């Protein structure tokens, strides 16, 4: 099992959709929400995903294709 600690930024049209539930139905990953913020136009979710490497990569790719920005919780480290 591997884990990814991620920061997800949702576009306005996805804020009200149960995207994380949908992801967990499609892929065999365990999610654990640690923090969230929602504003009028966007949402941010800080989450841990556990699963095997291949499934995690597929789940992340699926989130990206949905229009969610998926970034590591460390943000950009290239300074």
């Amino acid at each position: 099992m591997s884990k990814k600690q991620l920061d997800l930024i949702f576009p306005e049209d996805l804020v009200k959709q149960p995207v994380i539930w949908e992801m967990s139905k499609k892929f065999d990953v365990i999610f654990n929400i640690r923090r969230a913020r929602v504003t009028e136009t966007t949402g941010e979710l800080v989450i841990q995903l556990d699963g095997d490497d291949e499934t995690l990569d597929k789940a992340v790719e699926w989130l990206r294709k949905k229009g969610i920005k998926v970034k590591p919780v460390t943000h950009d480290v290239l300074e």
Partner: protein
Amino acid sequence: MEKLSGLKCKECGRKYQAKAIYVCEFCFGPLEVDYNYKQIKSHISKEKIKTGPNSQWRYWELLPVETESVISLGEGFTPLLPARNLGKLLGLEKLYIKNDAVNPTYSFKDRVVSVAITRAVELGFDTVACASTGNLACSVSAYGAYAGIKSFVFIPVDLEKGKIIGAGIYQPNLIGVEGNYDQVNRLCSEIADTFPWAFVNINIRPYYAEGSKTLGFEVAEQLGWKAPEHVVIPLASGCLMTKIYKGLKEFDMLGLIGKVRTKFSGAQAEGCSPIVTAYKENSEIVKPVKPNTIAKSLAIGNPADGYYAWKTMKETGGFAETVNDEEIIEGIRVLAETEGIFTETAGGVTVGVLKKLAQTGRIKKDELTVAFITGNGLKTQEAVSEAVSRPKKIAPTLKAFTEEFQRM
């Protein structure tokens, strides 16, 4: 009692020991250094600071290291210059430039790296690392060499030759990563989790970031122990702004200066402005962007401290503004022409935004304002190659010069 109290999560407030950790295991929020201010207050004084070294280490009591044998190349305590000519041009009567382009490797990064490597060595690390496209690479390489420890510097494989030379001369292990910025970011986070190294801006970040506070300390001391009324700061990760604010508030809390009422205004390039966009949209969520600007040292599309910089600007009544590439070059040229300071593109962004804020009355003409210049122009010469004076060719005779002189 030690001056270091430990680390504390910026989001949920959970406390940790002062080790090489950087993310809260509960909420994944960033960790920052917490101090025993009561103990510090009993030791620190203006007199003691004044007799300290002419470097950022005169503020040792407020920096996150335990040793007094710090790894220093003399960074900090850089000039705070009254910018009379630029001020006149912009209609600002009390404008100052904090010129941090004159640090040992010519950028403010020397402050944070000096703190990071000192702390890394006292935590027992023998290898330091960073991921960088320029200033940080130079600084880690130089300080790693001086500290006599191994250094690994990760750069995008297609980085300009000038920047590779600037770091490579110190003989670090330079690793050129084939991939886009996102891939380099991801790889470096994975390496930091895997190798037992001090990655200055990842697992040592809570300590590293504290070095930027010294810019706030110095400005306050150089102004005669008071905070400025308005500051203009370039925003990359956003850390610089939040730490200058923290520094001023610490001085206030310790009774070294009066109440801080400084407005914090942020400057970004149009081609990479996630924090300014969040400010203008009044959204506390900073949306990542793909950078496309000549201001490479500010090109952080997903800034780690973006939210905290946003909060600082909102809390203090500051402003946020952008400039385009042409305005950046104009900013570099104007600063050189009026104040004799040659800054890199990030400084062009700061001066460009300073100009916009002054012209629109968001900086008042009598506000005591400080603009922070964080890097040296010699590092980004290609950006201004078209904006410099060209030599006028003449024959080696007095007659030829006299004729040319009459045309000037």
